[in-house]
């Protein structure tokens, strides 16, 4: 297991009134779960926290997380990830799904 935290600047997310969190994905082989929660203290930053079962992959993680922070407005949120060896494409897919779930009105 490896754990690390990293913050990146990102445009401020307009937090929906009805929701305080969103979860996407499941922890399982080659998969991960992403929990996005508000972090109003830092509106222009996203704070990532990652726990992964496959170590020595931090460079790729950070590159993918940084890309996501620059492509989407997620400032003012903290994102926690539990990972069991997901490929970067899955990481980005789940981040996007969590964001979609958050801003959509469905549950």
């Amino acid at each position, binding site marked *: *297991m490896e754990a690390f935290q990293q913050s990146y600047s990102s445009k401020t997310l307009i937090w929906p009134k009805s929701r*305080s*969190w969103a*979860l996407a994905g*499941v*922890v*399982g*082989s080659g*998969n991960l*779960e992403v*929990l996005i*929660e508000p972090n109003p203290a830092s509106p222009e930053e996203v704070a990532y926290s990652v*726990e*992964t*079962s496959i170590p020595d992959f931090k460079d790729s993680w950070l590159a993918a997380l940084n890309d996501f922070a620059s492509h989407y407005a997620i400032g003012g949120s903290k994102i*926690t990830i*539990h*990972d*069991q060896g997901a490929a970067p494409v899955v990481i980005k897919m789940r981040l996007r799904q969590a964001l979609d779930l958050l801003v959509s009105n*469905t*549950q």
Partner: protein
Amino acid sequence: MSQTPYHELKARERIAAIADAGSFNEIIPPPERVMSMYLPKLGIPVAFDDGLAIGSATIGGKRVYLAAQAGQFVGGSVGEVHSAKLVGLLKAAARDKIPCVLLIESGGVRLHEGSSGEIGIAEAIRAIFACRSVGATTIAVIGSDIGAYGGMGILSACCDCRIMTEHGRLGISGPIVIEKWMGKEAYDSSDRALVWKTSGGKTRYILGDVETLVNDSTSAVKQGIISVLTKSAKPDLPLAETQQAKLQARLDQFGKMTDPDEIWMASGVTDVTTATLDEAEDFIKAFTRKTS
């Protein structure tokens, strides 16, 4: 866009599809981070919900408690937190006398948490009977490839009702365990056709172990749940005696058979090949027609 089959959905997607829109109110939601204390010590990633989402909801307008297991997370296995959430929910159902619907996808006790999950399942079984004795219907929905095995197989068998799809499997020992025990000649676990014929929804339906067999779609599963929400099987002497006779008759009639197809045929299915491919509705119709 076609509807995603029930067996392909993840636990939370199942809840979203089965509960009336917007009605699910999660108990101990993910941000609460009530997670396994065992897995981190074993170097295994944890899940925010420990592989079980629980809450209250309405289904077809009727209030229920609802739980869904995440089969992807350590095989849907039942550890200490997972089982405690389940037990709490069942006790709440007994207290409030409302139905409890379990969307099951589990290989049984989580070995990584040792006897803790085993006792948890035993407690959950006690709680199921507490529900049954007050008429709070307990419903096990089994429609995933992982199915309901081990302790969760036993637990499912204790519910008032079981709803299965042809993808669901209900058993105790899994095919790999049996293959190791009996040898590949007796049970080839890679022969999935045999595995499903042994434990799958259709055979369970034929033998009368499930209330209803439904198509592998969320709408069919939801309809199935609605159709049994008011059914209950209070544990009393007549029920026990009827079941005793039925299970004895099953042993007498089929006990010497080894091939599930034999059971199908002896139960009145004339065209096994077609019946194997049939959707649940056609299967039920064909089976009822043949046997009536």
